Structures are given as C-alpha cells and as structure tokens.
C-alpha cells in the first residue's frame, strides 16, 4: 500500500527576556543550581506572579511576523500537575485564549518551490525547572534556575508531508525567531525544542490517522531522523495488522528509534482553569501598530528581495537568507564585489564548507565579509583566476592578510600579457611534440579531450597564473594554425 505522512510541529522557543515570565529572576543559562530562583520561583506561600511586559512584546512581534491574528484579550490558565521541578504544582500557560492566533509561514522546499504552512497558534507559558538524577546517590536534585523562564509554544497545523518539510519548517521558524531577536535559537541549551506529531494514512485518504507525539527533539538532524524512524515504525505496525496508539514517544538517537513514554489512557487531567492571580492581558491596536514599524526585514521578504534585486534563484536566495547573519554577510561582501552571482557562489560554496569544516557560525568566520569582497574583486578584474582565488581564500582564512597583500607576496598575479602566454605555450607544445602530432591526426571527439590535456599542461607550466581565457584562445590558434 502507498502511505502518506502527516506531520505537525509544536515548537518551544525560549524567549530572550532578561528576567523570567512571572518573576524578576535572571534567566542566564548555566548558572549554579538555584541561584536564579526567587521566592516566587520556589512558589512560597503568598508569592504572586507578575507578567513580564517584554514577553508580551516578543510574542506579539512573532505574531506580526507570521501575519497572525492577535486578539485584544488573551489570558493565562493554570495547568495542574505534580512534578518536583514544577514548584507551584501548576504551570501557568495559555489554553483557550492564546496571545497569537492563526498565522502562516512560507517555507522553501528542496525543489525551490514554496509551501505555505499554517500556524494554528502561539502561546506564552513558563518553563519548568530541571530534575538532576546524577550525583545525588539515588536521590534527585532539583534546579529551579530554568523554572519560570519564558516560552513561546508555536503550534503548526498538520500540513507537512515528510521529514524534510518538517525540518524546513522548523528551520524557518528558527530563522524567524532569531531574525526577530526574540530567541537565541540555541538548541544545545534547550532554547529551541520541538515536539513532532506524526501520523500516516493510505494515500488519498482525507481522514487523519492516529498520531503519536515525539517529545523534545533538540536538533534539526534528529527531527528528520526521528520522524523517518517513526513513520517507518507506524507503516510496519499497520502492515503487520497492528494499530497506532495515540501516545507520547521519545526519540533515542543512539538506536535511531522512538519509544513509548506514556499513552493517552494514562494521560493526566490537567484541570485547566483561568489563573486567578493574573488579569487578562489587553493588547492595544496602537501597541501593535508601533511594533509593526519596528519589525526588521523578515526572511521571506529578504528572500524575495534577493531574487529580484540580485537575480538569484529562489534556492540561492533561501539559503542566503536562512539566517540574518548570513544575509548580512552576503550583502556586505556584495557591496564590495558588485557581483551577486559570484558572491552567492562563494558564500554558499567555499565559505560554507570552511565554516562547516570547523563547525563555525558565520559571525565567527575567520574571513570577514570585507575580505571576501576584496578577494572577489580580484577575480572580476582578472587579477587572479578563480582557482588561484581559492588558494588566496585559504591564506586569508589562515590569517596571512588581505587578498591583495597575499597575491602580491606570493606573486599570484595572473599573467595576461599575450606574448608571455605564447612563450609558455610554445615551451609546452615543444615538450609535447608527440601529443601535438597525435592531436592533429585525431577526430573531433579525441581532439576535445586532448585540448583539455594541453590546457592543463599550460597552466602547470604557468603555475596557474596564466589567464585561462587567453590560454584557451591562444592554444586553439596554435593547434589549429
């Protein structure tokens, strides 16, 4: 049977508020346990929550960026359950009246097509603390530093039809919250976590299959792998005559499989009700109007501008705008190089592989946008060839200086004097007299291949410095002539 996959994501983005959502405690990552936990965070008697205005502002920014409905009123509810890292015995969250309503986000697929994913809602809530199971000889330690940090839970519609789309959507949200400056996106520190709702159905069926929820996946790679392995599990289960149970599952990367955490039958009754300690939040139109003016250029807008202004393909423009830093880098390099296609190729090619190799973010690139721009200028003005430029690029990355000084010091300047090139060619042809004979006797196909051989020989003799176009042209004349 042909199966079709349906995926929806719930993304928890930790908002970059300096203090917690309902208390004045700091939110910095990695502090000594319980040094960022106030009497409110410990839920001591008589303590009360006060909503952080910055959390509201950031959630509204997100809402505006995904073109969502933002109602005049939103409200906080208590979600009741007992857990040691949940001090008050309830999580303050938003159930029926989230701050951000229906919105949408366009994602670029691998074939460069654009798909619109609807966002059901996004709501504010507090994070829980952490239970520490090591170093307490059989007991559990509780660290409440994270308790009460601000989360924005972003819920998509079940509209993604494979793992790659889900990753593209997750990346797009990741990029967006970082563009907006409302989340640092650090997945290793848990600032951006993803729950994946996965179901399958026979191709063509409109009714949704039973879904499972894979909790807390914390890297894009794992999102893809977790979904693929879960889809595979569901297909095998159904084809073997079984049925999918609605449940929460965990992905184990070491075994590349998901396993059951708890099923719906065991699901807790959270006894949601409006939090009586907090007033409904009123969002004024004028506040949203002001915020709208503060919105930066968003990934989609930037991508469209890159396509139009720089005549880049949708794919290239998507890659270059995938992070604000990369887009800024590209534009800074382009301002010097003046050649969009060339700059795009270098940023996405040489630069990206260099960064990947050392696992660096573009903002930590060993070669600055200015340095890259200057290097590219030397290609466009024929000072060096593209091949030589790669050597120079590496040298810049090694800290040997700027393009011009490296070209100068290493004598890499391209030979463009036709007399000098002719001399090189004559020397080379003389040394390969047999091949020249052969060439002249050969048919068209063989000639083509041998021509490449002569070019290679010529570049070798010139140590790569001879201008390739000129070598090409002059060699042809000499062999044909």
């Amino acid at each position: 049977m042909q199966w079709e996959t349906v995926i929806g994501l719930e993304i928890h983005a930790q908002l970059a508020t300096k203090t917690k959502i309902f208390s004045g405690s700091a939110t910095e990552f990695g502090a000594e346990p319980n040094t960022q936990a106030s009497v409110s965070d410990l839920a001591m008697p008589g303590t009360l929550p006060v909503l952080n205005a910055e959390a509201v502002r950031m959630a509204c920014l997100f809402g505006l960026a995904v073109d969502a409905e933002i109602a005049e009123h939103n409200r906080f509810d208590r979600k009741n359950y007992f857990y040691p890292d949940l001090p008050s015995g309830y999580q303050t969250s938003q159930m029926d009246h989230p701050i951000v309503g229906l919105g949408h986000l366009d994602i670029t697929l691998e074939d460069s097509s654009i798909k619109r994913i609807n966002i059901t809602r996004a709501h504010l809530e507090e994070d829980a603390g952490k239970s520490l199971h090591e170093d307490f000889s059989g007991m559990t330690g509780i660290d409440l530093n994270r308790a009460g940090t601000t989360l924005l839970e972003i819920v998509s519609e079940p509209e993604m039809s494979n793992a790659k789309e889900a990753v593209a959507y997750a990346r797009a949200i990741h990029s967006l919250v970082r563009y907006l400056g409302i989340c640092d996106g650090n997945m290793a520190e848990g600032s951006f976590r993803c729950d994946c709702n996965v179901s399958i159905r026979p191709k063509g069926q409109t009714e949704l299959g039973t879904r499972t929820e894979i909790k807390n996946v914390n890297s894009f790679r794992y999102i893809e792998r977790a979904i693929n392995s879960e889809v595979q599990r569901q297909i095998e289960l159904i084809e073997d005559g079984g049925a999918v149970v609605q449940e929460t599952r965990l992905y184990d990367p070491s075994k590349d499989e998901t396993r059951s955490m708890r099923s719906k039958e065991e699901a807790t009754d959270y006894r949601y009700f409006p939090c009586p300690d907090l007033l409904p939040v009123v969002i004024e139109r004028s506040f949203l109007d002001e915020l709208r003016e503060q919105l930066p250029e968003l990934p989609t807008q930037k991508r469209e501008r890159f396509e139009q202004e720089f005549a880049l393909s949708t794919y290239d423009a998507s890659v270059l705008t995938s992070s604000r830093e990369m887009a800024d880098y590209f534009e800074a390099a382009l301002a010097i190089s003046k050649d969009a296609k060339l700059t795009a190729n270098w940023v996405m090619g040489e630069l990206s592989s260099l960064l990947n190799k050392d696992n660096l973010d573009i903002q930590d690139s060993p070669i600055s946008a200015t340095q890259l721009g200057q290097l590219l200028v030397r290609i466009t003005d024929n000072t060096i060839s593209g091949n030589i430029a790669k050597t120079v690029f590496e040298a810049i990355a090694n800290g040997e200086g700027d393009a011009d000084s490296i070209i100068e010091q290493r004598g890499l300047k391209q030979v463009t004097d036709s007399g000098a090139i002719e001399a090189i060619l004559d020397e080379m042809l003389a040394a390969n007299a047999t091949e020249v004979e052969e060439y002249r006797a050969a048919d068209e196909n063989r000639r083509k291949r041998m021509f490449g051989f002569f070019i290679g020989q010529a570049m070798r003799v010139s140590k790569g410095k001879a201008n390739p176009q000129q070598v090409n042209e002059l060699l042809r004349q000499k062999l044909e002539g």
Partner: protein
Amino acid sequence: MQHKTMAQLAQALTNKEFSARELTEYYLQRIKQHDPALNCFVTVTAEQALQQAEQADARRAAGESTPLLGIPLAHQDLFCTQEVRTSCGSKMLDNFVAPYNAQLIEQLNQAGAVSLGKLNMDEFSMGCSGQTSFYGACNNPWDNSRIVGGAASGSAAAVAAGLAAASTAMDSGGDIRLPAAFNGLTGLKPTYGRVSRWGMTAYASSFDQAGFLTRTAEDSALLLNVCAGFDERDSTSAQEAVPDYSSTLKQPLTGLRIGIARALFNGDLNSHIGEAVLASAEQLQQLGATLVDIELPHAEHAVAIATIIGTAEASTNMSRFDGVRFGYRCENPRDLADLYQRSRSEGLGELVQRRTLLGAYYLSAEQYQDYYVQAQRIRRLVKQDYMEAFKQVDLILSPTSADLPRAVNATVDANADFLTQRYTVAANLAGLPALSLPVGLLEQLPVGAQLIAPHFHEARLLNAAHQYQQATDWHTRTPAGF
C-alpha cells in the same frame, strides 16, 4: 490601657501617659495571663515586640506622631513574616519561616506598629469555626461553649479579649466579618485589590482580601490608611487613588441611601438578630440616612457558587505544599508518589484535604463545564445584582450572620461552614468592600450587622459605621472576665 481603641492609645502615647514599651509590656502580660485559656496566638514575639516598641518610642521622641506609631497589633498567621514562623494553622507549615514580609506587614512595620505575634486560624483559612487549626481550637472569650468563628479566629478573640489593640486578617468569604460579629468587633474587608495580597497565603485567590478586626470603625480607617494602595508585586491590586479614610468619618449621614433586601431577612435567620439589624437601620435613619428596599435576586446562589469557585482555586493553590521545597515532609519516602501522598495526607488536616479534593473534582475535565464555568456565569449575575442595587442606594445593610455562634460540640455537616457565610460571601464574589459592626446583644452575645459599599467606597462604609458608633455603645461592650 484596657480595651482602649487604637485612636485612644495613640492619643495617650502622644500625651506621654505611657510609652510604647510600657503599652507593649502591658499587652504581653495580658497574653501571658489570658492566652492559655483562649489559644489566640500561635507565636508570641515578645522580644521583637519590645524592640519595635523601643524604636517607636525613639521615633516619637524625635518628633514623629503618626497614628500607628507604637500601637501593639497582632497578625493572622498567614501573613508571611521574615524570621518568624508563618504556620497558616497547619502542621504542613509548622516549620516554615518565610524569608520575606507580606506587603501589609511591611507597611505596618514602617508605620511603626508593634507586632505582638501571629494569630491562630482555621487551617489554611478553611473553616468558619476556629476549630480546624493544627494548634488547637481558638476559644470564644464571650462564651467558651460556643465557637469563636473563623477563619480569622485568633484575630477576633485576641482583640475582643484585649490581647492586642487590633489585628490583621484575611477575608475570603466572611472570615473577618463573621468572627467580628461573634466577638463584638468592627471587621473590615476592603475592596478586592485595595490591599496587596503579596505575602498573604492564599485560600481562593479571586476572593482573598486583607483587612482588619478593630474595636471601632475609626481604628479600621487608621489601618486602611496605611495598608491600602497599589503594589506592583500583586497584579490584581488596584491603581485606584487612596483617600484619607479618617478625614470623612465625621461627615453627617444626611441623604445617605441604605438598601435593605427584605427577602434576606427570612428563612433561617434568627428573628432576634433580624430585629437587631433592623433596629440599627432605624438608628442610621435617625442619623440622616434613608432606607430603600432593594432586591438581590441571585443572592441565594452565592454560597453554592462560592463553594465551587473557592474550593477550585484553593485546590490548586494548595498544590505547592508538596513536601519538596519547604514545609512538612514525611519520613523515609519510598518514592516520589509516596513523598507527595504521605507528606500531604500527614501534613494537612481533614477539612483541607476534603476541600482540596472537592475543588479538584470541580475542575476535572468531566465536571468543569457543569460546575466551574456555570458558577462563573452566576458569579457575574450576583455581581450584577449589586451593581444594579448601587444605582439606587449608597450602602446595603444585612445581618452578618444568620445566627449566634454554634456550640463547640454541635455536630455539623460538611456544608455548615459554607452556609455560615450566606450573608458575607457575596461581597467576595463581587469584590465589594464590606464591614461588620456590633449592633446588639442577644443572650449576652454580640450581634453583628453588615454594610456593603460599591467598589472602592470604603470611606462611605467607615463613615456610616463611625457615625453609628458615635450614637451607640454596642462596640464598647467587652466579654466578661477579660
């Protein structure tokens, strides 16, 4: 010094008739003498009280003469006090010392009031009898065969017996006004949001309001002057401007329209109490007020919906008492579930457990729509009744309690406590300010009447009560033997 009002004591302190230290020693002596019989105090902070008194004397010597400077008060044991245990009348918090002061405590400290200690109460404010405390029942100084009333039992008994000049307390449904009525005191529950809830251990967050038990309305005004106001740590506290409540006490009541819902004077109301309350209405009329008949059609539902919403909120407010971070923890828990279950079932009393379960039931997914959501709808109707009534009248008068306090050993069903609040709980549902004042004696026991005002009109309540107290002497009666 005996049975003097705060205003009288302040005058005496200004006149140097005695020092704050002498006054505090006097009260500490009375506590020593009478508290063993009454059990008003969970904790007496003698040393701290004397220190505060000396500081107050020093401030007075330096020329300060604010009304609360050096006045010995005591606080219901649910207001968090730094370095002094806050037990909420529960084994659960028997070992709990907060590292912070409630906002109200902070305000009173700054005003120079002396704190004699922490007062007994029904456990976690659950109950109306004064009998549910882990520290034992608080006894009624007027008649120890009857309950003292609650939840602010110690707050009422201590002031009635002259063990403190006045006390603080929380009112979530009548917890100040009922024991005030039973003890011949003036009990004020301000408008919801008028006094900060920061540091006041919650029962039901949308009902709870801090207030006072005093000998007179004049004293309530003095305390409210200090404690009213916005607190940025309490999102539900009001930004509304705070008037000088003392300055309007002397206004004549001419033209004041007082509403009476005659329908509330039937049913189970002790007819003698009804008569005493109506007599107080006539007294107010003689002082210039006019009486207007009003209707409060949804009043009969108040108790039922307060039970639902109140226990629902309380059930989740109680979740933090889990034995993990502070408070009672059972010995040798086997695992996490055992730690929760035993800490809570050993640390919390029967009534608290019952209400917590009841509230959790009302909030459960199957019951939520039928109970909680429905109750919130009716709550709006109850509030609307009052809003409508206040278009015609300035204050509403009713009994505070349907009857005298019951016998301590009477067998009562689980709902009796809620029914006790039938006249008082609507003010909490609607967030309205309300005050109980003594208006008679019946079988040698005080009888209270309740006045309710529109939101933030505490000044009007206090003015009417003060004028009444200028013309009558019910508020000067004290229990025999104290």
